[in-house]
């Protein structure tokens, strides 16, 4: 059962059981963006408040599996209070991580140990790449956040 525990690391189960930044923000001023995975019915709503190019607050509602829920919780913790440019970097790094599966098959873009360390708790989601159908669960919140940032540009 090693690979199952690879997927469901303690950090993930913890964020699933006790999601961070759960709730809504008054919008406006916050932006409200919906994400949707038609295949499994997972839904997510991201509220983001950007002031002076800083993501000052983020909240999440919605429902989904442990992977999509913990990923959104981990995301909120990682991006909250960060400058938008840095948030975009974190999103890019995370997407890179999710492509690990293909990347390790012959490119030089596989995440290094240093990369992973830099990601902190997010690295716990690395196990997802071994379960390709679940990658969409993990990236749902991130795509929704990216969309929210784009809409504000």
């Amino acid at each position, binding site marked *: 059962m090693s*690979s*199952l525990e690879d997927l469901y690391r303690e950090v993930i189960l913890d964020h699933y059981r006790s999601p961070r930044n759960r709730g809504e923000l008054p919008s406006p001023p916050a932006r409200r963006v919906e994400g949707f995975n038609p295949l*499994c*019915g997972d*839904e997510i709503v991201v509220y983001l408040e950007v002031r002076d190019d800083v993501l000052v607050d983020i909240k999440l509602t919605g429902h*989904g599996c*442990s*992977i999509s829920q913990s990923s959104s919780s981990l995301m909120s913790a990682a991006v909250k209070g960060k400058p938008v440019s840095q948030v975009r970097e974190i999103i890019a790094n995370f997407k890179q991580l999710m492509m690990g599966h293909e990347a390790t098959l012959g490119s030089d873009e596989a995440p290094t140990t240093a990369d992973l360390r830099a990601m902190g708790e997010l690295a716990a989601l690395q196990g997802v790449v071994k379960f390709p159908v679940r990658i969409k*669960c993990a990236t749902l919140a991130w795509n929704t956040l990216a969309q929210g940032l784009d809409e504000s540009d």
Partner: protein
Amino acid sequence: MAPGEPVSSFDPRRVRADTPLLRRVINERPITYLDSAASSLPPRAVIEAMSRYYEMRHANVHRGVYQTANEATAIYEGAREAIARFINAPAGANEIVFTKNATEGFNLLAKSWGHKNLKAGDVVLVSEMEHHANIVPWFQLREVNGIEVRFIPVNDDFRLDLTDIESLMEGVKLVSLTAMSNVLGTINPIKDLAALAHRHGALIAVDAAQSVAHSPSDVTDLDVDFFIFSAHKMLGPTGLGVVWTREAILDQMPPFLGGGGMIADVRVDGYTPANGPSRFEAGTPPIAEAAGLGAAVLYLEGLGMANIVEHERNLTSDALSRLASEFDGRVRVIGPSDTHSRGGVISLDVEGVHPHDVAQVLDQFAVCVRPGHHCAKPLMRRFNLAATARASFGPYSLTRDTDVLIEALHHALTMFG
């Protein structure tokens, strides 16, 4: 041996031995296949019928004069006859149209029969427990024709709420209902509803996708007007669906897809459609698939549909009672809790564990269940669920499969508990 009659020799272990995929080992465990509602596992006889077809007889059908073309045509038309017999079509093979799947069947119904016979304000009565295949084509027709699509509600006991059925029938031209829900397992009283529909001057179409491999099908006895299903849910291949309708209705239906094979004549200024089932079978048909379906019908007839019913009812009854007693209410069955008028489709709601995660954990035990909305989103909304984890039986299922399911569910609960 007459179709539908029990034979004492029915043995699920023999069916198992006939089914190559059940020898598969996953994560060091033998596979526990509990996803027959999504697609069933074909026996060797079906797989070999198709291989043999390609190895020995493959040719395009119709119009051929040479030996293999004749053989291919005989196989294709033979499957039509086998299906006509299997569902007891009153006028035989002339009433059987082959499509690519049940979904195309409902599109044929809506876009050919419906487009011609329904006008603005006419009502198509479906139910809240329908598969999208029996909903979306009606919505599409509504956009074109302005028909009304009305839903029979589903009760808290997971059955059709027929209290107001007489008033629901107002303006109804077609009742289109599933014989068995692919989420709840509920079996609907089609024969009664057919009588009701006809009393109101309406026709009735049956979505037999789930029922066809799990109970005897007799369109004459049911006295219905359309009967639609897929080969891949009855131990047959992908790529083939069936629409049965009365010859008199079929004769009046306008063409649907256009092309070769469905015409009597084509001139530069127009075309004349062919008669009979060919009118609805444009292009090269699923020939090898028909070979597979013919073999699947023979195989099912050999097992005896009544035996399958009994076997699956026993499995379902055992599973329902163990699921109820083992988990202190932490595993809820979304569907009728007794085996009265219900089949072997068991949707689960596991406390604190999302269906996706249930299925993921079960996969580690090589247990195959399907998470999701099962193409029945209106039903999911009705019960305030985003998804369920669904286990479903086939003729090859054994109590042992339920054992493993329960073991794995315990693990999921512990893991996320």
